[in-house]
Structure formats: C-alpha cells, structure tokens
C-alpha cells in the first residue's frame, strides 16, 4: 500500500479491497440478478415456443410495459428518497378521467400536446400535495399516501363521475394509434408499435439524468440514506420531498393519459389496485424497500421482467392465473438470496 510521504504520521491504511466474485457483483448490483432471470426466461420461453419472438408478441409486451414503466420510474424515485407511495394510481386515475371529461365536454379541439402537458402538470400538483404533507406532518409517506389515495379516488368517484367514457375525442384516439413501426403478421394482420411506446424509454432517460447529473438527484438519495443527517448537512428536506412526490405525480399523470389513449376509453375505476405490482417491479429491480438505493436501469429491468412474466407464461402453457405465483416466488427468491449473502459477510 502506498502512503503519501508527508502524511506518514497521520496515515492509516485503506481498508482491504473486496474480492471481486460473482456473488460480490450481485451484492453490489442486485438488478443484475433480475436481469439474469429475465434473460433465462426469455431464452427458455423462445425455445419452447418460438412465437414469443414474433413481432406481434414483442409489440404487445412493449405496449403493456409503458404504463407500468412510467409508474415504476415514479416509485423508484420515491423509494430512493426513503418513502413509499401508494397514491400514484389514484393520481393517474383522477387526472386522466377529469382531463378526458374536460376535453370531451369543454374543449374538444384541445391540441394533444396541451392535453399531455396538462396531465403531467395536474399529476405533479397532486404529487406535490403528497410531498408537502409528508414534510409538514412528519409521518411516514405510506400513511400519507394511503390517505391521499382514498382522497383522490373518492373525489374522482364522488364529484367527477363514475361513467365510462367510451367516445374519446379524435386527437386522443389518433395519439393512441399513431404507429412507430408496423409489421404484417403471418396471417396477414398488421400490428404496429405505437409511437407512445417511446415515452417510457424517454422518461427513463430523463429520470436517469435527474438522478445522476443533478444535485437534486444526490439530495434525494442522501435523504433516503438518512433523512436527519441529510437535513443537518444542508439538504432542504421540504424541497426534496415536494420535488420527488411531484415528479412521481407527473409520471403518474402522463401514464394515466397514455392509458386512456391506448385503451380508447376512460374508466374511472381503472388503475387503482395495481400499486403493489408496480412496487414489486421496482423491488425486483434492486431497490430496497427501506430506501436510499435503486437504479433506473434496475427499474427498467424489473418492469420488463414483470411484463414478460405477465405476457409470456401463456405462450408456454402456464395458465395466466399462475402469473402471480411466479412473480411472488421471484420476489421471495430475490429476498432470500440477498439475506443469505448478507449473513455470510
């Protein structure tokens, strides 16, 4: 070990280097475990049933990943700050339904960009309310967001409406349909990957940039690591909380409007109830539920894993009712894996 010459008096040796085994790598990058599982599933399924690799099923999965993916990026942010959010689906439902209703009844010619921006801002506003409450009340965000989930959803059903909106304005239908890529399948049908699919990778890149290239990103992880220490070191906790929850709300608002356009209808009873699956995806992506960890790459991996499991098991003859069993088993396996690794240390 080298020592700086004039420092010999006060120098103490660096800690020994950690061995670089595969186990150590998985310990440091837990998302690689999920990535390995994902690859194994994809290879196995495509060997058993090559239909898995056809454009139509890939596109199905691509489409299915968008809404979960946007939600998951938001949950990643919340777990990074050391919180848990269960209200994002209610934010998505409230903003998508009220916005669609508004466009249909009041402003049918609203340009699509304006609709999307409004959804994002609306979601951000509701999210900011979460963040403000978490900071004001100093209670765990799980409690706050259970409260706001009921509040947002109750407000939607009591004051906005309970009727399914089946006739969307044309610009929203067009947005849901606009193709990025089109393929003709063997039986002559045309399947296309919609342009809105790009929103998920784009949001992932933006999230990555915020969390890795700005001070805010580091402040979020600092708060998730130890909130009282972060406050002592000068990271303004109110700003951090409001930012993170607003960010998650914005992604939820965006996910909501895409959900409407993709399904060509707005159902006020939709979305709420899928929180656990989204949280599961993020946890499978290596984020700890106790906060302060996680990566965007891991989150994307977790989302893909959940999407593939939900869409491919049918292709190999496993009934769809077994999806939950499989996802549950993965989560427990991953947890057991990390616990045993930690005990060995």
């Amino acid at each position, binding site marked *: 070990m080298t020592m700086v010459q004039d420092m010999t008096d006060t120098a*103490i040796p*660096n*800690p020994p280097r950690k061995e670089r085994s595969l186990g150590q790598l998985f310990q440091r990058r837990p998302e690689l475990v999920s990535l390995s599982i994902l690859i194994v599933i994809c290879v196995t399924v495509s060997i058993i049933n090559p239909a898995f690799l056809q454009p139509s099923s890939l596109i199905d999965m691509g489409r299915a990943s968008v809404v979960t993916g946007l939600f998951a990026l938001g949950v990643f942010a919340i777990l990074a700050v050391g919180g848990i959010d269960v209200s994002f689906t209610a934010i998505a439902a409230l903003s998508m339904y009220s916005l669609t209703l508004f466009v249909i009844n009041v402003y049918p010619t609203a340009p699509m960009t304006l609709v999307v921006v409004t959804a994002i801002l609306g979601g951000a506003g509701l999210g900011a309310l979460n963040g403000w409450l978490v900071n004001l009340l100093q209670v765990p965000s799980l409690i706050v967001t259970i409260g706001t989930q009921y509040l947002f959803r109750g407000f939607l059903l009591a004051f906005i409406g309970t009727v399914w909106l089946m006739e969307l304005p044309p610009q929203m239908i067009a947005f849901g349909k606009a193709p990025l890529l089109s393929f003709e399948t063997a039986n002559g049908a045309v399947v296309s990957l919609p342009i809105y699919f790009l929103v998920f990778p784009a949001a992932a890149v933006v999230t990555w940039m915020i969390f*890795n290239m*700005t001070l805010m990103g580091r402040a979020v992880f600092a708060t998730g690591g130890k909130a009282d220490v972060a406050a002592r070191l*000068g990271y303004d906790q109110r700003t951090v909380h409001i930012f993170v929850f607003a960010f998650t709300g914005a992604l939820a608002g965006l996910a909501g409007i895409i959900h409407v356009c993709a399904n060509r209808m707005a159902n006020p009873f939709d979305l709420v109830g899928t929180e656990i699956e989204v949280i599961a995806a993020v946890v499978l992506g290596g984020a700890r539920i106790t906060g302060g960890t996680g990566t965007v790459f891991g989150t994307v991996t977790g989302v893909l894993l959940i999407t593939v499991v939900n869409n491919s098991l049918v292709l190999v003859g496993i009934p769809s009712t077994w999806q939950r069993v499989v996802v549950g088993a993965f989560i427990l396996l991953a947890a057991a894996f990390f616990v045993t690794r930690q005990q060995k240390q």
Partner: protein
Amino acid sequence: MSQSPSPSTHFLELRGIHKRFGGVHALRGVDMMIDPGEAYHLLGENGCGKSTVIKIISGVHMPTEGSIILDGRTYHKLSPIQALEAGIETVYQDLSLLPNLTVEENVALGQQLVSGKGRLLRRLDKKLLSETASEAIRNVGLVPDRALMTSTTADLPLAIRQRVAIARAIASKARLVIMDEPTTSLTRHEVDALIELVAKLRSQNVAVLFVTHKLEESYRIGGQVIVFRDGQCVAQGQIADYSRADLSCLMTGREIEALRYRTAAPQDEVMFKMSGAASGDAFFDVSLSVKKGEILGITGLSDSGRNELALAMAGHRGLSAGTMEIAGQATRLTSPADAIDKGIGYVPEDRLSEGLFIDKTIYENEITLIFDQIVNRFGMIDDSKGRAAAHKISEHMNLNTSDIDLPVSALSGGNQQRVLIGRWLSIEPRILVLHGPTVGVDVGSKDAIYRAVQAMAERGISLVIVSDDLPELLQNCDRILVMNRGRVVDDLDGATTNEERIYRSMLANHLEAAE
C-alpha cells in the same frame, strides 16, 4: 442580519444564548468565543447542553434568545447552509455519513451544495466532485484510489469512516471543525493519528472544537477548555491552568476522587471457564476462567478479537473450537436466549441500537427479561409486580429519576446505560458480560455505574468487562486479560498493574510492524 452593536474580533462569538425545548431550559445564557487556529475542549456532564450548543453553532437548532456573531456580523439564528458557508464543519459522534452514498459523494457533495447556497436544481459537476474529494481524502492520510472513492460508506470500518467524515469537514474551506467525542471508539494508535491531524489543521489556522469526556487527551492536545454545567458555560480558559480535580469539580459541582472501586475479593468457586476456544479468524486458543464474584477485564485493540470474544461468551457468536464450562458443567451456547437461560447476561456496546427499546419507558425496558415471572394466572402481565421490580432496579442503579414511566430516550447517556445494566439485575445472572459499559458516559454516571458493578460482584455475580478505557479496568477489575491479534497475550493483576504495561502488551508486534 444587522451590524453588531459592539464589534467582535473573534471568528465566532455566542452572546447570551438560551434554548428551550418545550419545558426544558437546555441552555441558560451561554457566552463563548472561538478564535482561528485554537483548539477548544468542551467539557461537561451528559445533559449539560454541549450537544445543543454545537447544534446551534452548526445551524441545526435555532436559539430561543441571544445572538451569534460570526465574522463580525450578528445573527439571531443560522441555517445549516449559512454555517457551512462560513466554514463551520461538524463531525458528529455518529459521523453523519450517508451510508448509501460513495466516499466521494460524502466528502465533496457538500461543497457544491454550499457554493450554490443550497439550491438543488443544478447540474452536478462530477469532475469537481472527484477532484475535491481526492484532495481532501489525501489530506486526512488516506489513499484516494478508485476502490475507496467508490465504496459506499456503510461498507467501511469505523476508523476509515471517521477519516471520511473529517475529510468532508475540510473539503471546503473549513475554519472551525467541531468534533463530537471523536475518540470514543478509536484505539490508541488511531487516537494518536487523529491528534496529529488536529495539529495539522491548527497549523492551517483552522479552529478545532472537541466535545469530549477524555481529559487525558485534552491535556495532550492543549489549547482552551470550555466547561459547561446545567446549560451554562462555567469556565473558559487555558487547559494548562486547570487540574483534573478543578475540571471535574467544575463539571459536576462536586468533587470525585479517582479511586479504585474494587475492594472485595472473588470467591473460590470457578463460575465460567473457556479452554482452547477459537471462533473463525477472530480469536484463537483462548483459555480463561472467571470465579464467582470476580471482575475480569478484557482489553486490546479493536481488531484484537476482544469484541468477538465478548460476543462468543454471550452466545451471540459460535465457537469453532474449544470448550466452555459454566459452574463446572460443560456447555455450548446456541443463541443469546440460550445464554440467558444458562445465566449469562450481555450488555452490548451500542446501547441505542442493540440494547434499549429507546421509545419505550424505563418500566417497559426493565421488565423485558422477566415477563414469565410477572405474569398472572391469565398469562397477562401483572402491572404491580412489574412496577415493583422496576422500582427496585431503579433504586439499585441509582437512576436520577423516580418516574419509571419516562421514555428511555428522555434520559442522559449515563442513565440509559444504568437502565440497560439494571435490566439484568432482574434475573440475577450468574455471569454478566459488559461491553464498553461507560462509552460516552459522563463522570458522574461512571461513578454510579462502577458502584453498581461492584455491588453486583459482591452479591456473587461474575462480571466480564470488555473495554478500551484502561482507567476503568484498573479501577474495577481483579484481573485484566490483554488480547493481541486474536490471542490472550497477558494476564495481569488489576490492583498492581498499570496503563503502560497494558499498552505494551496491546501494541506488541503492532509497533514493530508500523516502523
């Protein structure tokens, strides 16, 4: 912010600072001054307001009354960012590192945060981050290689974590570095290195303020002493002008002599015995015995295996070789619960995270080991029996409150430790292993703990004290075992040996290796 009424020539001056927390009047008019390049030792018993004053200086708490004069400008309160901007850096006792961030980020993020006045929506300059961090890490005597800089701090040993915390303090233009009990869990060698580092800081005109219980180190470092008692600063002056007796008198308001507490002698019966014991690569070939009513001290550097030995004695760690006997019966401990069943109690070093239910009351903490004794015939806890037991313990341990419904978190460190040790009195263990029983505890509480320890020994409990604090071992133990690199290298008589002798055994081989 306004112009100071009478200009202050000091770097930092506190004038008439009061702080109230609800009904508690924690600071009652504190005046103190800090000048560049000087060392200060803030002394006082637990609960005298030392931590509060530090938090006011570093902007964590807002004073209720009074003013803070920093570089000639008067403030009624500081924000953490303002304090950091002025170059006031604090190394808290818990080090305040962010466990999930890398060394690089822990050291250097603050500089960018402060230079942007706390604004967060800014680009993170990674090049600056790594340059600042490398330089600071080099300045505290570590090698800023990639492996270290990209480790998360949760993965580092304590001595390195402390260096990282100090590196953070000096990464920006620090002018005052506050260290809250920095040497509490360091070995002697590490303490020496820290003292060198402090000298270096002072030579760069940085003021250093220590909060400490260790007078010996304060005398070695020199500089000024600031003594607190009951929320007031009762003395500030050159430490050389005060004797130890003066200082403990100032701190406690009464006189405490440094006496040998141990007066009784152990009984003949051997209560606990280990032969040829080993555990992994932590310790080897350890043979020892403890008699009934004997107090055995075990010391050594932090990596000498003494901590693991303590854990093994209490069933927290398995033996890979060797045998164990309790009262002449060969036995194996399979778990801490098994050890308790066999009459071995353990008071951990880290009372906050390992020993106490910190939000629960004294009462609830005291009865955790005796549920089976205080249940009534319906299997419910009999409150009056439990309360009687808890009251008895409080009296035995001389707690300074009779209100057993107070949450433990409201007590000072010394009283918390007494609650923790007292809990074992409820089951009268045959053997009690005390791990660092007075870490971070003030003079007055130490006295009470030592008296309680001696009383237990007189009642026939065998005690094992694992500690760094050599005066503590010399004052309390019948025998002192010294561990070095996993082996017991010395077995000394507590009444006749001395600190020098113990240090030599502790450091043998280490000194040659360091040359």
